């Protein structure tokens, strides 16, 4: 009798534990749930469709002023290079310099300026400043006009010169399969 009741109890405990696990879906119950504000503050990555872009706007004209204040110290007064290279060629250089210029989306430029510039204080630019800096870099690359306004809607629509100049390296390839460019004599 004692045996069967403890067996019954065990079954109940195991079952309820399972139910809890199913409801929660967590095996280890470690870590904590971040607040929405916490996630929002850290969620800075911008996808090619630009759906994460924040409100704000900027033009190349505004960007030129910003460049003189916060970028010229490293990139040179005219963006020709100083402590580091100048304004990165983004595909309109002739002859085409493919290395570093294969940036496919304007969102890539926005994202990198936002997270990594200026090097003395990365992440310190306001959204308006990042739009302006991006506009200035794209204007200097002859991709947009000096007066074009970049914002969350217009930026993802900017067509980068090398947008179609890449080959999806391994179409259909899945991890674990033979590499398509491999040598199989």
């Amino acid at each position, binding site marked *: 009798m004692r045996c069967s009741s403890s067996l019954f109890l065990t079954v109940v405990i195991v079952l309820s534990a399972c139910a809890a696990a199913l409801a929660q*879906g*967590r*095996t*280890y119950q*470690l*870590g*904590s*749930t*971040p607040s929405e504000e*916490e*996630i929002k503050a*850290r*969620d*800075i*990555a*911008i*996808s*090619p*469709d630009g759906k994460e872009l924040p409100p704000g706007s900027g033009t190349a004209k505004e960007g030129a002023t910003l460049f003189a204040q916060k970028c010229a110290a490293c990139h040179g007064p005219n963006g020709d290079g100083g402590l580091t*290279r100048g304004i*990165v060629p983004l595909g309109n250089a002739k002859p*085409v310099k*493919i*290395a*570093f*210029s*294969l*940036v*496919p*989306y304007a*969102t*890539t*430029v926005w*994202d*990198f300026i936002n*997270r*990594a510039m200026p*090097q003395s204080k*990365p*992440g310190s630019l306001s959204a308006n400043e990042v739009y302006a800096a991006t506009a200035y870099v794209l204007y200097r690359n002859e991709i947009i006009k000096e007066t074009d306004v970049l914002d969350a809607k217009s930026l993802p629509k900017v067509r980068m010169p*090398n947008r179609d*100049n*890449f*080959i*999806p*390296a*391994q179409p259909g390839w*899945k*991890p674990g399969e*033979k*590499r398509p*460019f*491999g*040598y*199989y*004599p």
Partner: protein
Amino acid sequence: MSSHSHSNRRRFLKGGGALASFLMGAVRSVRGQAPAPEAPKDNLAYGQPSQFDNTIRRTTGRATAITDTALMTPLQDLDGIITPSGLHFLMDHVKDVPEIDPQQHRLLIHGMVDRPLIYTMDELKRFPSVSRIYFLECNANSRPLRGPNADSVQLVHGRTSCSEWTGVLLSVLLKECGVQKGASWIVAEGSDANKYTMSIPLGKAMDDILVAYAQNGEPVRPQQGYPVRLVVPGWEAIRSVKWLSRIKVVDQPYMAWHESGNNADTRPDGKGLWFRFELGPKSVITRPSGGQKLPGHGSYEITGLAWTGGGAVRKVEVSIDGGRTYKEAQLQQPVHRYAHTRFRFPWKWSGEEAVLQSRCTDERGEVQPTIAEAAKNLGVSPDYFYQADHFNGVQPWKVNRDGSVQNALFL
């Protein structure tokens, strides 16, 4: 586990009890309690190599536009398959190595998941851990060089290292959050100043990627991502994000700066290849190798390393006549998947000119090509590889009559 104000090494010393007390001559305090053992002075706290040894990382001395640091592993001076942590290669796209207090560090997992979760380092270490021996290799490793830098296996091929990594499988952490339908990629982010970012297919993330907090038995070194990093086995090391602080589960690659422009493979036709991911089979003879000098004819052991992003090295063949004939080398056992594999080959040098080279075949039957075979395979001229990434060609070393060894790739 409770305190990370001291390194694991110090914790070991503290917890070493009788042995530590004996070694350090600790005395009991007046109250009769054993005081914390003192850290011994100088090299006794953490052992250092002999003053006669000069096994160090080296650099070409040539800065690149996208890399602030480029330090290569001294493959010619190492034995076995493990790279000492302090000699691990270093190719960074960040300005400075961040100093991260593990007590303050958090890993956030969010995006297309049922439950976003945030972990402290202590919590991460409470998950089931695994230890695995994996190599890491920069996609720019082994670019055919000319000039003085070409004569050193360290400078040409030293952007690869191999460690025992300990950590939690990323799949465990992702399952804990509940990955939603439609998710297909993750975006991993570091907590360096630039918040270095990479996109990785979800399939790989759910397979064998490690969230590693230890390297060769001790905490991952700051230059290698302290307190925690990704280790993506078999794939170009740019994916193995250091100082990992955030993983977002998403439905597309985000084309971050360092994966879209800087690390595209460029082709002669001006097009770029993205997402090469997996590294091909490769091997290189580390002794004798370029810049070394054989003291005289007689017995030598040819030795080197082989590895492949395809899993395990199946065989390594060595040629002493520039590739006309090959003989199978002995592989150090056990052979680990996605790890450096040591090969050895006995050789008697007659004193005549010889060209030594090795060729790796991996478990999927992919073979390491010569530069001519690689060029033919891709439909390019051999010059193409001078600036190409992911080059895995055969490396010939020529032994001259005076015993000097030189790079024979372009001879």
